[in-house]
């Protein structure tokens, strides 16, 4: 053993205890845990905001909150859920699982890893403190369109800096994932043997590095327009407010795949495990993910069909958008084909994965409808759009996050979770989430606009049903916390493999795994390849 190795041996079991352990940790599992806990807390903060929205919309007329506050809730709910819940949750899974899946001792850049996490609590302090500021929290929508967003009060520079800060965290996290996968793989772990979660995450990381800086540029221009007299988004100076939308969505569309691509990796891990069959079409899954990532950079203007664009632009962005259905269809086909003639069992992770496949596909179909330019002219900014992106984000991204948590919780804690409670959590969630979001399709098609605290009486019935679904769904998630808490505290001992059909390097480590994952690289013969 070299000097270097003995040097790190000095360190790795001597970490400070208590708060200092978590503040200073460079360990991928500790950092992963921190990310996942932050995401869970943010999920409930953002969820509480969603319940304010749904409480206000329970009936027509104004009930509980002022319109300005309502608008703050829609804005901050979105920012918290996207940047505070889903993205950190994915980075948490990346931290926990990628080193174990590729046979590495840790992430490649451990101190940078600590920093990318410890930015986030500070960034969200900046963002959430605006709720208490004069003029209230940002209320112009999470997309921050000028000129509306420039009317934000004291919160405005805090919003901009919070976005910069979160962006720095995402870029640092993405760099770490890419470097880890390309430089830390165990001998024999070739690229086409990588588990799909690793593949989808590196593609996500490329999207992050290419798109987040563009967002940083866009919000910087907002800041100088507001405080330093520039005219990027003011026609009076020769700029164009629509230009903001172009720059924003150049970031924004890759961003939605940042939220969903790792989910594809999760489903591709869970379905083969519980179907007890290798994944159908592994390499086509890899190529489809890459194709989706490429296309995500040339579809952005489908978010802005109604703002005014040359006809050639409307057509180009419609065709590229609809083209995304092809690689996405490849994925859904492969998951279904994996289940064909298999021997499936329905543990909680599998239930959530199946829920994902059905419900995400519904969200995909409504996305196709929205992608067709002339049709979008009617749907734009209605509740149909809200229904669409909540199907892909809640029953898509969030369901897969929950599925992944149940899937790996026994590996992390060394205990089996309570299967009965897990199943109850699934059934409550899957029913209530449809009660919550399915009626919003009808509301949108009938013309109910989004981001408005009041509505015309003909929308009353479906809104009431949707709000009931929202409260059931929201409170059902407390059950998730109970299951996690019980599993951390104790329960039936988990084996190393945990699931009968589980394959992959992470299942060769004991449950819970050692502090540093693979001190010595795994035997090349134990590497089976990502089909599993």
């Amino acid at each position, binding site marked *: *053993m*070299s000097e*270097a*190795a003995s*040097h*790190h041996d*000095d*360190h*790795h079991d001597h970490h400070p205890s208590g708060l200092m*352990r978590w*503040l*200073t940790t460079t360990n991928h599992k500790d950092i992963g845990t921190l990310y996942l806990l932050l995401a869970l807390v943010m999920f409930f903060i953002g969820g509480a905001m969603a319940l304010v929205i749904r409480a206000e919309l329970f009936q027509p007329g104004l009930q509980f909150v002022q319109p300005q506050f309502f608008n703050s809730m829609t804005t901050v709910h979105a920012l918290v859920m996207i940047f505070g819940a889903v993205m950190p949750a994915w980075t948490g899974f990346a931290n926990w699982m990628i080193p174990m899946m590729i046979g590495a*001792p840790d992430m*490649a*850049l*451990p*101190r940078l890893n*600590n*920093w990318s996490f*410890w*930015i986030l*609590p*500070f960034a969200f*302090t*900046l963002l959430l403190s605006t709720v208490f500021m004069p003029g209230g929290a940002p209320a112009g929508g999470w997309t921050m369109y000028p000129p509306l967003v420039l009317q934000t009060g004291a919160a405005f*520079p*805090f919003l901009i800096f919070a976005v*910069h800060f979160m962006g720095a965290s995402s*870029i640092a996290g993405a*760099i770490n994932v890419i*470097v880890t996968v390309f*430089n*830390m793989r*165990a001998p024999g772990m070739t690229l086409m043997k990588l588990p799909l979660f690793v593949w989808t995450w590196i593609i996500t990381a490329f999207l992050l590095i290419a*798109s*987040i*800086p*563009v967002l940083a*540029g866009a919000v910087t*221009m907002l*800041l*100088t*327009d507001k405080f*330093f007299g*520039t*005219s*990027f988004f*003011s*026609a*009076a*100076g*020769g*700029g*164009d407010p629509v*230009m903001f939308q*172009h*720059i924003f969505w*150049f970031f924004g569309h890759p961003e939605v795949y940042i939220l969903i691509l790792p989910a594809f990796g999760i489903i591709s891990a869970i379905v083969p495990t519980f179907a007890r069959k290798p994944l159908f079409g592994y390499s086509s899954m890899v190529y489809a993910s890459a194709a989706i990532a490429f296309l995500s950079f040339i579809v952005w203007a489908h978010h802005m069909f109604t703002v005014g664009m*040359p006809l050639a632009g409307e057509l180009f962005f419609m065709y590229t958008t609809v083209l995304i259905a092809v690689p996405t269809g490849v994925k859904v086909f492969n998951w279904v084909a994996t289940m064909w003639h298999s021997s499936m069992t329905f543990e909680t992770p599998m239930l959530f994965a199946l829920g994902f496949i059905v419900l995400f596909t519904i969200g995909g179909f409504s996305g196709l409808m929205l992608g067709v330019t002339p049709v979008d002219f009617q749907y734009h900014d209605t509740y149909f759009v809200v229904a669409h992106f909540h199907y892909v984000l809640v029953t898509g991204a969030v369901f897969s996050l929950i599925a992944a948590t149940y899937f790996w919780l026994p590996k992390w804690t060394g205990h089996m979770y309570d299967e009965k409670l897990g199943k109850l959590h699934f059934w409550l969630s899957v029913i209530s989430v449809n009660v919550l979001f399915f009626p919003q399709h009808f509301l949108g098609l009938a013309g109910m606009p989004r981001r408005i605290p009041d509505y015309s009486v003909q929308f009353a019935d479906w809104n009431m049903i949707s709000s009931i679904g929202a409260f059931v769904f929201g409170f059902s998630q407390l059950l998730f916390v109970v299951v996690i808490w019980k599993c951390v505290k104790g329960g039936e001992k988990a084996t190393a493999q945990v699931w009968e059909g589980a394959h992959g390097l992470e299942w060769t480590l004991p449950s819970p795994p050692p502090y540093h994952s693979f001190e*010595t690289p795994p035997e090349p013969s134990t590497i089976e390849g990502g089909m599993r």
Partner: protein
Amino acid sequence: MAAAHTDYYIPGPSHWPVVTSIAIFTMFVGGATTLNGAGIGPMILGAGFLLFLYVLFGWFGTVIGESESGIYNDHVDVSFRMGMMWFIFSEVMFFAAFFGALYYSRIYSVPWLGGEGSGAATNQFLWPDFVASWPLLQPPSDYGFSSFKETIGAWGVPFWNTLILLTSGGTVTWAHWGLQKGNRQQLVLGLVLTVLLGATFVTMQAMEYGHAYHELGLTLNSGIYGATFFLLTGFHGFHVTMGTVMLFVILMRSIKGHFTPKHHFAFEAVAWYWHFVDVVWIGLFIFVYWL
């Protein structure tokens, strides 16, 4: 790829990252309150900046100490290289946003305001007297934005600055050759020249800004031309300044005898960064000053 994982250096617990976050958080709070007009803002900003300087010395100091003690093997070195490469790529994308704004306003928004394409009604109802041109000396409205006399020509200071930056790319490479040959004199001389050229560039750019503000009337407020001009060249100038500081640190380390002909990631990272700044400048020279 890993031959032996156990050789990979994994640093122990570190307080630097979280202190970095506290420093930047303090700077953001100070900056935001300053922009909101609170008197205490600049003091908070200053306190955050001091803490940030402390972090820069402390964190980089730790890393330099570890590097000199020889615990970074080739495998760790590859991680650093990949990390720096992707960081620079993220910077490229940051500049892409501003170049995008420049192209969009030149190709679309300004001509549309002048009535081109389907912009006839826009022109008629907003500012019928507005004539589209580039550079846009006279913004559509005087309300909030000012006109200016002329732009900074490409073949004066910007041309000389182009030569300066290209030469500095050469001198830093020459210094690298010196380092690889073990010729420390050439290394130090090359770095001194590069730092001086970088500082000259920044000084000339600052003088040019003074000229633009005071004699040409070209300011941040000068419509979309002023906005794109100052944000693009300003962020570039900031990057050149940071690059010069980084080169200066490398120079000091070279004088102290750091780096070996085989092991000098920090030198190369800064050199890459310097070339990146150089390439961005070529883009600026062509699209902002020249065309």
